[in-house]
């Protein structure tokens, strides 16, 4: 019994001294957009989850929020990534200004932004073309389908989507939608990378995300980016508030099936 107690005490001493000695890595995100946007709730959920992981690894994740009209004079050097809901034109000028930092596009679906292949923009939200392709595949089975192609839905249960939906709803008393999923995913893939690689420079983070990412977005296969900067992902087809199918549609899309959705190449 005495030996057991001594061992127990020793463990505590070791743990305490470990915690005192360990340096905490601080990682900062910045969100540019409206405070009421649902994407921000997803971002906050992502930050919470990252800190839950970070407590075991001595990493702390912070979020700053700035509005669109304050961009000009802001110093962006301390951020690991920018998360934004701004539209195409603002997004482009932001990317031109801040070339060595990942800029997550959470809302803009324009095809043009994808074919432009802007090196530091990462599109979490699917392009119009991805969604249209998803619907087209489905319409080969049900030609008059009125389904809506979405990147996320609160009724989705597979691949532990149920768990993410449940904890988001518990925290924010509202359903997770496409934009909040995008915000969550952007933060989560970045903090996962910090945890795995200890990368804390924005430039290296951008490079890693574009070339080596293998992310669990809680919607199936591991996720990564195309050369266009678009996140490869499945698209949910939703009708009457229910997920009725997942594209790529099995038996219709040819392997590699995820490449049957959206734009694959950059314009010359």
């Amino acid at each position, binding site marked *: 019994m005495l030996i057991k107690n001594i061992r*127990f005490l020793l463990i505590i001493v070791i743990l305490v001294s470990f915690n005192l000695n360990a340096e905490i890595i601080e990682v900062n995100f910045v969100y540019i957009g409206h405070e009421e946007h649902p994407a921000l709730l997803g971002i906050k959920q992502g930050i919470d989850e990252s800190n*839950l*992981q970070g407590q075991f690894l001595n990493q702390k994740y912070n979020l700053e929020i700035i509005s669109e009209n304050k961009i000009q004079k802001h110093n962006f050097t301390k951020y690991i990534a920018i998360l934004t809901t701004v539209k195409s034109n603002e997004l482009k000028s932001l990317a031109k200004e801040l070339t060595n930092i990942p800029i997550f596009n959470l809302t803009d679906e324009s095809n043009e932004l994808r074919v432009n292949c802007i090196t530091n923009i990462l599109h979490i939200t699917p392009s119009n073309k991805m969604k249209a392709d998803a619907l087209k595949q489905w319409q080969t089975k049900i030609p008059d389908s009125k389904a809506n192609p979405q990147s996320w839905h609160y009724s989705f249960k597979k691949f532990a989507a149920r768990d993410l939906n*449940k904890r988001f709803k518990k925290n924010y008393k509202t359903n997770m939608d496409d934009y909040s999923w995008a915000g969550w995913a952007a933060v989560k893939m970045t903090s996962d990378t910090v945890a795995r690689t200890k990368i804390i420079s924005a430039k290296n983070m951008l490079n890693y995300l574009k070339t080596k990412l293998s992310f*669990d977005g809680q919607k199936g296969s591991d996720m990564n980016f195309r050369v266009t900067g678009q996140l490869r992902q499945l698209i949910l087809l939703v009708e009457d508030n229910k997920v009725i199918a997942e594209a790529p549609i099995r038996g219709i899309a040819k392997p590699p099936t995820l490449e049957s959705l959206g734009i694959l190449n950059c314009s010359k």
Partner: protein
Amino acid sequence: MRFFWTLLTITLFLFNSFVVNADGRIFVTNERSNTVSVIDAKSLTIENTIKIGERPRGIGLSPDNTELYVAVSEEDKIVVVDPNTLKILRKFEAGSDPETFGVHPNGNIYISNEDDAKATVFDPKTGEQIAEIRVGLEPEGVAVSPDGERVIVTSESTNMLHVIKTPENIIESNILVGSRPRAAVFNNSGDIAYATAEISGEVVKVDVRKAKIIKTGTTGDAKSKPKDIILSKDENVIYVAGGRANKVIVMDADSLEIIKGIPVGKRVWGLAMSGDGGRIFTTNGVSGTISVIDTIKNEVIKTIEVGKFPWGVVVRED
């Protein structure tokens, strides 16, 4: 010499048949039928079906084999069943959404509470909660070392193996592994553990005391989402449930190289081994069946129909 080998083979065969045919039962949770299927180990046929409660998943036996525990996730409870009479003895509250659990040699149950980012420890005799351990998001797999010194809880959305020291019930180390770690198993001495990572399709071998990954292997099939994992009695081979690859992947426990893929039913998740190591039982969720694998031939020798979405399986031998 040849005679000797023949004799040895025959002896082993007889011994094997003898032990495998020992009396006993195999218990299977059927997630969407809300039942437990009871299979006679000798005839490998369904003997009985117990109405157990909503969404039964994790299943296990007390160290003395006198009580069967079933986690009914939707009811937030553990149901205690007499494995002889098949009568429900009692139920106790087991925290939010209990999924899988491990039974410690001292009789306590370590439960992963998926919704709450914690593991809880219960005394199943009294239903009393003994400890609560904060872990990562979506805790899933629970493994108890044979000597009872440590428990591993995997957290799926935090990508970690949390190594918990017992009886203190504090986290000793956190080992970051591939995406969505689902299940873990210790070797006999408790210094090595193996774990599956579903999304990255990996099996990792870790040094538990050093909290380090020793080796990483892949299940070698894009469709495979590895779930349950067990170690052979001689510790030479690991068996991994390949999920939607619809096979059990046999790997060398040292090199983590694939030895064989054994085709079983659809979406194989749960695995259990007979006491002598001669048989493996798999739950095939989408097929609604159990496959019985002969571990000498590494082949399926029988398929048994059970309820909807069989999830967990445990073997009780008399």
